[in-house]
Every structure is written in structure tokens, then in C-alpha cells.
């Protein structure tokens, strides 16, 4: 009951603050630019002549993943900076005082905030991602093999990041929590790329970097699963061996073990946040 009230409040806050409208404007610009870019792609004359359909699909896959990466970055930054103020900001400003003096459990308030944020962040990623897939379909006729899985994994990536941002905002200040969350997100992505290069070069030590970082923070792992669901299955084969390190193609789908790890990670980080928030003096 309390959680639903707070979730509704969080969604109302998002809709009444400029962040949503800024996000919407950025998304529309991104969609329009991508539609324009993809339309140029069709008639692209390379030095070797017009692209074959296979090449066009490869390039479409690559570009789609690139654009969706941009979109997940927008969602990540948007939710991280929305999640930050929600705990630390409300405690700092004194808004939390009157609210927490009501007959509510702090964990219920936190759960409500989290629900509101994942509804917002996850909803944004799914809707904007779907719009992007439709744009690509209309313009170049490419439709990914597993769009639902891909969008769900993108949403999961967003949830992981905002859960992290919530934890950080319960222990450090408002701005710092957003910056640290986005920084970790970027660092994990870079570590994933480094790991991919290591794997492509057959260097196990370097490949481990990506694997370990994906376990510590599952954003990059989920992102790679999403890419795998969006890309043309033949694209990787066309790129040929030795290109495994390319950051906008993913060699394989996620393993069930990894898919199970992500919710466990979320639950553990959420639990830590609840513990820290319930002990905090406001």
C-alpha cells in the first residue's frame, strides 16, 4: 500500500519534472537522425560498388546496436540522475522528514521509489527501443531475430543501473551517486570491450577482465545479451573470425546462469540499500 503510493508519487515526480521532457526530446532527435541515417544507407555506393543485401544487413545490425547503445546510455544517465535525488536529495532537503514520520516502513518507501523508477526507466527503454526497431524496419526492412528478449534485457540493464544508483544515493551525496553510477556503467562497458579484445587475441588474462566486470556489475553482460538478440545472426559470421572484440556485436546469447545472476545481484544490492536506508538518521 505504502509502496504503491510512493511508486505513484515517484512517477508523478518524473512526469512533472523536466527530466522526462528532456529525455523525450533527446529520444525524438535520436530516432529522427537514425531514420535519416538508415535511409542514406540503402543507396550507399561504396568504392567497391553497391552493397549486397548481406552487407546491408550487417551494417544495419551494427548501426542498430550502436543506436540502441546510445539509447541505453540516455536511459542509464536519466535514471541514475533521477534515482540519486530521490533518496539523498530528499533526506538533504528535509522532504523525507514529514514523509518518514508517517506510519510507514522505510523499506516500503524504498520499494515504492524503486518500483516507480523501474517503471519509468524500464518503460522508457522498452518504448523508445521499440520505436527505434520500427524506424529501422520501415526504412531498411530489417527486423531483429528476438526483439522482445532484446528489449527485456535492455530494461533489465536499466534496472540494474538504477538499483546501483539507489544504493549509492543512500550512502553518498546526490550528485556523487549519479556520477559514480554512470562512471561504473561506462567502466564496465570499457572492461567488456577490453575483455572482448582479449578473447579475440586469445589472451585469457585480458578476457577475464570482461568476465569479472560483468559479474560485479551486470549492465555490460545484459547489454551484450540484448545486442545478441538484436543483431542479424549471420552478421558475426560475415565479420569473420578475429573480430570478436568488436564492441557493437555480441558473439553469443546469455547463459541461463548469467540470467539468474542478474536478479540475484539486484536483490542483494536492493537489500543492502534497504539496510543502509533503514539505519540512516534523517
Amino acid at each position, binding site marked *: 500500500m505504502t509502496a504503491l503510493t510512493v511508486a505513484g508519487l515517484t512517477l508523478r515526480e518524473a512526469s512533472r519534472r523536466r527530466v522526462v521532457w528532456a529525455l523525450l526530446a533527446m529520444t525524438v532527435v535520436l530516432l529522427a537522425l537514425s531514420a535519416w541515417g538508415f535511409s542514406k544507407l540503402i543507396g550507399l555506393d561504396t568504392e567497391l560498388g553497391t552493397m549486397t543485401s548481406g552487407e546491408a544487413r550487417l551494417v544495419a545490425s551494427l548501426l542498430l546496436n550502436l543506436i540502441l547503445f546510445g539509447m541505453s546510455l540516455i536511459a542509464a544517465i536519466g535514471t541514475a540522475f533521477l534515482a540519486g535525488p530521490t533518496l539523498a536529495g530528499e533526506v538533504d532537503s*528535509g*522532504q523525507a*522528514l*514529514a514523509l518518514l*514520520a508517517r506510519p*510507514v516502513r522505510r523499506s516500503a518507501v524504498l520499494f515504492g521509489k524503486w518500483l516507480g523508477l523501474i517503471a519509468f526507466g524500464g518503460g522508457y527503454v522498452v518504448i523508445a527501443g521499440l520505436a527505434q526497431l520500427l524506424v529501422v524496419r520501415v526504412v531498411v526492412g530489417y527486423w531483429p531475430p528476438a526483439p522482445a528478449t532484446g528489449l527485456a534485457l535492455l530494461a533489465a540493464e536499466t534496472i540494474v543501473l538504477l538499483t546501483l544508483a539507489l544504493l549509492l544515493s543512500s550512502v553518498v551525496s546526490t550528485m556523487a551517486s549519479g556520477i559514480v553510477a554512470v562512471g561504473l556503467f561506462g567502466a564496465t562497458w570499457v572492461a567488456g570491450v577490453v575483455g572482448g579484445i582479449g578473447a579475440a587475441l586469445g589472451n585469457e588474462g585480458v578476457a577475464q577482465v570482461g568476465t569479472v566486470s560483468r559479474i560485479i556489475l551486470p549492465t555490460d553482460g545484459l547489454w551484450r545479451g540484448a545486442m545478441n538478440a538484436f543483431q542479424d545472426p549471420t552478421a558475426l559470421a560475415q565479420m569473420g573470425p578475429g573480430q570478436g572484440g568488436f564492441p557493437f556485436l555480441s558473439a553469443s546469447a546469455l547463459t541461463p546462469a548469467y540470467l539468474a545472476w542478474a536478479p540475484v545481484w539486484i536483490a542483494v544490492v536492493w537489500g543492502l540499500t534497504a539496510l543502509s536506508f533503514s539505519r540512516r538518521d534523517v
Partner: protein
Amino acid sequence: MTSDAAALDGLPPSPAVWCSGLRKRYGRQTAVDDVSFTVARGEVLGLLGPNGAGKTSVIKMLLGLVRPDAGEVLLLGRRSTDPRSRSAVGYLPELFRYQPWLTAAEVLALHVKLARVDVDASEQRDCLALVGLADRAGDRVGGFSKGMQQRLGLAVALVARPELVVLDEPTSALDPLGRVDVRDLVLALKARGVAVLLNSHLIGEVERVCDRVVILDKGKVAASGTLAELLGQREVRLRLAAVDGRAEDRLRASGSMTRSGDWFTVQLAADDDGVTVPDLVNDLVGLGVRVHAVEPVRISLEERLLAVLRHEEPAPQEAAR
């Protein structure tokens, strides 16, 4: 309402606030040290003390916002660790901030929902009208002045039909008219049998509305008691001539005496039955003293507070209940 419940149970209702042995340290700084007091149902208790005395920390510990290092709190008969203890508690924080993207009416609706009390929209509007915000109900809080936000905070504290209202510096942002409004509100709550815990720097306000006062200093209870107990100690000033040793002994027999020139000040006992002064004057005249003036001196709460904080005299200490 509470008296009905009490009649049913055949038991007196538990106090609105009961706290015992509250302690809180922030790092090496002891903010609150062994604070115990009680607020009875329907009683208005004033919390006084200088800045940094620990008043706000005590209030936050009562409401479960700050975890005490030691001590226990019961609110309306329930342990404060149980969120339900705050079901019938209204709170205006010292740092009052409400969601700037909501309207005043929406803030009240949110708090009614969180308190799980069935208060309909017209009653919520009445509550806004009570604090003078009736015509701003549909405006966003972000555009409110500080004074209006504090008025909104009062409405939030009052909206969910509380049995205990905790007001932390409720007039800090209000103009003199607003202060009078708050005083009237507190008196109206008292008339309805709602207990009020009032933390205020405005001693005049406290003196007007409070039944009892707890004075905190450096995190400890420096003095506490009813206003009559705290202010009951009265003095009488006499201008005398031809005072000899016997006359001075007679003066000391009535209470501790100080002399400044031909002015003599005698502190009277709190339970003085009104015959001490006439008897004293009678005896002094009998001893040949010429009595020029006899003036009763009333001690204000402010003077009492300053005396307690400056350790100028032993404070009447009420045993912790």
C-alpha cells in the same frame, strides 16, 4: 475519542509520549544524554533550551527518524520502533520542505494516504483553510514562500486527525500574525484533547499555551515541571529603613534574602499560602523597622529559563515519570 476507548478498557489511556533514558552521540559529540519525559494525553508540553541543546534530536528520536543509541520511546502506547506508533501523530519538522512539484491539496492527500486515515476532500480543504491556505490549494508548492510552506506543514501535521502533534519551531518563518494563528491552533488542539509537543524559541508563546515545560541544556534535562512549579517561586522586594540585626534575621526566616542598599529581596517558598508577606511586614514594624515599600516580583519564564541555563539557582527538578 480517547476517553471513550479508556471507558471501554477501564484503563487510563497510555501517555501520548513516554521516553526514558534517550541518548545520542554524533561522533564524539554527545547530542542527547539521558533524557526522559512524558507528555500526557491532551497536554501541551513545551520543549525549551538554547541552540544545540538537543531538542530537535530528541524530537527526531521520538518519531523514529533518528536511532537513539540508548533509551526507549512509547508513542500513544506503542513502541516507536513499530511504524504504527505514528498512526495518529502529526509532525511539523524544523526543516519543512514538501514536494515542490505537487499542489498543496495533493501534499495533504498524499499524507492522508500514507497515514491510512479516511479523511475526505472537504475535510482536507478545511484543514488548508485553517492554516490560511484555502485559496492556494491548487497551486504548486514550488511557488510558495517559506511562511506559506510552514503553514502547509502545519496543515500536514493536522490533516490526519492526530492524537499527538509534534511542532518543531512552528513559527520560525511566520510573521506576527502567523504566530498568533499558531498559538490559537495549539489552544484549539488542547481544547480538543490533542496532545502537543511544542519546541519553540519564543518563550512568550510557550508560556501562553503550555501546561508543562521541559528545559534541555547540553543534551540533558536541566529543569522540568508545570508552569506553576517553574514560576511558582516568587519574590518580594522591600525598601526598609532602620534595619537592625534582629530585623535581618526575621527577613531571612521568610526565605533567602539579598540586600542592595535599602532594598531587600526575599525569595518566597513555592507553596506560600499568602500570609508570609503580611506577617513579615507586621513583625518588621514591631521590630521598629520603617517600611517604605513592599513590591511583589513576578518571575517570567524567560528569567527562569536564563537562571536555569546560567546555573544561577537550583532548578526545581521534577522526578522522571
